[in-house]
């Protein structure tokens, strides 16, 4: 079985965000970065799948030079092969352009059975690249997956649980499939020191737009039909009121105020 994990590097959620304001793009090079938290679950699920069903696991990312770090982490976790899709032409890609590049990489890898990705990234927050990727590739689209029940590569079938509004949907789908996973599907493991040391020395192979056969005009800012035109910090909430006094009085006041909102029935 051939398994692919799509991994994204995102700014550390604690770090200061640096924008390239005129372009509406992130200055990713200037920020502390981590593996997108949701992709850690995707990578772990891919590792578990390899352990349970055998096969090769390939991790891919799209991003600038420093995004190689997230793939190095994958190598430290014993992923068989990594590829970094990196080209100046990819900068400013929207959801469709991003998914188009990832789809081209997956096609280049060839004969892929299952693709794992995280539900969303913590920077762009779009939460739709998995669905778009499945649609472009014509793979089964399995989103919000909370459990992989079984994979039968021979019969080309996968059964998963999807955590959706109001409950869990059990879905059987044909392989190949794109599986986007939610938090809680597993407990991501950490690489050991030996793995980290070994990965530090490894070359990260890069794929350019030309390598992927992607038309540079159809990706990146030039090829994206959605564009960020304005960035703002949301206004802070007005400073609240600290209720002081005895608990009895505070409880009286706050329950009155909440009942006055006419929401509680």
């Amino acid at each position, binding site marked *: 079985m051939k398994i692919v994990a799509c991994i994204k590097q995102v700014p550390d959620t604690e770090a200061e965000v640096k924008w390239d304001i005129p372009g509406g793009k992130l200055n990713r090079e200037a920020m502390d970065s981590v593996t997108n938290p949701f992709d850690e679950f995707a990578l772990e699920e891919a590792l578990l799948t390899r352990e349970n069903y055998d096969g090769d696991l390939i991790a891919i990312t799209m991003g600038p030079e420093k995004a190689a770090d997230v793939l190095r982490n994958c190598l430290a976790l014993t992923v068989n092969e990594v590829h970094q899709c990196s080209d100046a032409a990819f900068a400013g890609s929207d959801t469709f352009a991003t998914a188009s590049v990832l789809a081209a990489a997956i096609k280049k890898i060839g004969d892929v059975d299952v693709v794992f990705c995280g539900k969303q990234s913590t920077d762009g927050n779009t939460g739709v690249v998995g669905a778009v990727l499945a649609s472009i590739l014509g793979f089964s689209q399995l989103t919000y997956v909370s459990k992989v029940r079984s994979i039968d590569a021979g019969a080309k079938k996968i059964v998963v649980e999807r955590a959706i509004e109001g409950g869990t949907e059990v879905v059987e789908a044909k392989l190949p499939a794109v599986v986007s996973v939610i938090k809680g599907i597993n407990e991501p493991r950490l690489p050991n020191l030996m793995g980290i040391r070994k990965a530090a020395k490894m070359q990260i192979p890069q794929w350019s737009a030309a390598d992927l056969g992607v038309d540079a005009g159809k990706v990146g800012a030039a090829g994206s039909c959605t*564009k960020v035109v304005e960035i703002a*910090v*949301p206004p802070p909430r007005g400073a609240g009121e600290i209720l002081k006094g005895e608990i009895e009085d505070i409880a009286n006041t706050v329950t009155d105020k909440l009942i006055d909102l006419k929401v509680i029935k």
Partner: protein
Amino acid sequence: MANDVWVYIEHKDGAVTPMSFELLGIGKTLADGLGSNVCAFVVGEGTDNIAKEAGSYGAAKVIAVDAGVFKGFRPDAYAKAAAFLLDKYKPEIALFRATSQGTDVAGAAAAQLGFGLCTDTIGIAVDGGKLKMTRAAFGGNYTVTVVNEKATPQIATVRPKAFAMPVQDASKTAEVVKESFTVNEADLNTKVLEFIKSAVAINLVEADIIVSGGRGLGSAEGFDLLKQLAEVIGGGVGASRAAVDSGWISVEQQVGQTGKTVKPKIYIACGISGAIQHLAGMRTSDCIVAINKDPDAPIFKAATFGIVGDYKAVVPKLIEKFKGKLGK
């Protein structure tokens, strides 16, 4: 009409809730600005009642794809039908709810048409016939405004409760157009085997009242108290990441950057310090009550009402007062 605003009506196996129609409100506002109509579109089997209800919520026209193969939701089937309709009618704007179904259909349908979309939109304006869509990025610490310059329709998913519900008027009716589009069962990739209803009764994303707990609760038992309060005031129970990661409550109930984004009218945060990752998921709640022992906890900067104290003392008092005042 080419510059119409379309609203996707989601349902589960034919069942709708009033929230299924919520985007007809903002859809009408946008259509009025463009001098066009707000239309609903629906994919399913036996959609007549849904079409009728869409009319009562203000849709001028309903376009339906109705066939047996669309009985239950399947992303590939529904996205193909949605892409077919959007390609045939080319409305100016198509809105979907940013739910699991809305995101699945919008993303895949846009991909089939060959362009991107704006997801989880929280603000929409029309500027020169084009949408300006505001959405949260970096877990709500920034908002970005997005335009869609090249695509028709401009597709957006819209965060639940970001806009007011339209008023229902049973006397209003819509013209219904049925499109005979179908897909072959053999061409579909997915099949739903079963649906297991959640033990958690309240969907936090749609809840008006949430009582939430964090690390400060100290144990899983702390949530028993919060559940009692939630029950008295008709709310759902939420949690911070720390409480979920401690195994005190299910991940389904996590609010924040790696959990759910909620917008209740009342959010009561107990023992939650207010890390930016948690604030990202609840900062747009109408009224926030924070209960925390630490007077310097950042949650107090976001709170409408702050109570410095131990939740173990405060919450039972709140339960007692609510019970008395609400006659429960």
